[in-house]
């Protein structure tokens, strides 16, 4: 039997490949193996193409745009109530868009690395939490703490709601002019209830921001737990 790459090297290369296509790509690289240097250079040329292709298959541009706008709006509203100086500063509006860009980019990569098959609402919420946490940590010294925290928490709730309602469908062949997932209605009665719960959560956040902005994260977390619990218990 022909020799293959070292197991550790193969494992490292495998980390850079999305799980959905890792098996066949590593197998192809194994077949082409002639030496560790050649193997590494070949993997470095192949991995970006595979990653970009996977992102293209899993990313829904319309939903991502919705999520980015929601995150941006969350930070704008948080700045309005918690610290208006952040809006009035030079580049204030642009600085508040950075968490949205970072969070959406992180979630795109999460979708590309997600396992094939349906994901639970809790998992979807966890992915959004990682994305908003990434944006939050990046802005820790760049924005006032209260603004950053309130914006991140509100983003987490709103974007997780979007993710649960418009769930990403993995490995669904998408024609060039194919519809976004939300064009295809799924379980219509359940969606109506979800919208009511979401509306109630948004009202809760708005009231908490208006009344006591510093306690807003607590209300947001409570609303999020209610939202996730509701989606986990209702039948599909």
């Amino acid at each position, binding site marked *: 039997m022909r020799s293959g790459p070292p197991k550790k090297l193969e494992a490292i290369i495998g980390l850079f490949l999305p799980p959905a296509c890792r*098996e*066949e790509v590593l197998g192809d690289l194994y077949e082409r193996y002639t030496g560790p240097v050649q193997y590494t*250079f*070949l993997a470095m040329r192949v991995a970006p193409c595979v990653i970009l292709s996977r992102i293209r298959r899993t990313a829904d541009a319309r939903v991502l745009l919705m999520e980015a706008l929601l995150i941006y709006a969350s930070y704008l509203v948080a700045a309005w109530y918690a610290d208006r100086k952040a809006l009035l500063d030079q580049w204030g509006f642009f600085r508040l868009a950075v968490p949205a860009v970072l969070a959406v980019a992180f979630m795109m990569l999460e979708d590309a690395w997600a396992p094939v098959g349906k994901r639970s609402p809790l998992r979807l919420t966890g992915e959004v939490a990682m994305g908003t946490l990434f944006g939050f940590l990046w802005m820790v010294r760049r924005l006032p703490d209260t603004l950053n925290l309130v914006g991140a928490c509100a983003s987490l709730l709103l974007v997780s709601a979007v993710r649960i309602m418009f769930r990403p469908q993995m490995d669904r062949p998408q024609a060039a002019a194919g519809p976004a997932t939300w064009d295809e209605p799924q379980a219509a009665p359940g969606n109506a209830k979800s919208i009511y719960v979401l509306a109630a959560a948004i009202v809760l956040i708005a009231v908490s921001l208006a009344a006591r902005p510093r306690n807003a994260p607590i209300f947001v977390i409570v609303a999020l737990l209610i939202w996730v619990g509701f989606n986990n218990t209702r039948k599909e």
Partner: protein
Amino acid sequence: MARPDSLGQFEQLLLTAILTLREDAYGVSIHAKAAELAKPKDVSLGAVYVTLDRLEDKGLVSSRLSDPTPERGGRAKRCYQLEALGERALQESAATAKRIWDVTTEIWGKDWTKEQWAKPPRKRFGKETA
């Protein structure tokens, strides 16, 4: 049946490679066959993966994971096959290419291709060649 979209040149290469290889059409073999068909141009393995995904999304090919083999370190291979839409798209492309070939050979003669392919293929460091 839906009318297939027009194919890019590289897509035509890959569909031809899959057609030729039949049951043995997977990443490495498709890349080797495409490189052979594309001479003297180089073909990268990454571009093959991207284009295969795009062809699958368009419904021109379908794929399945085969059984693991020891030659691949116990890993499965993803085998591709042409769908009816892909066959039709390739037939249309081949018919168009033949019409172009007939017209150009009528004007330039049949020897113009020898001048194009007389130069040796360019090799770069670490570049794979079939």
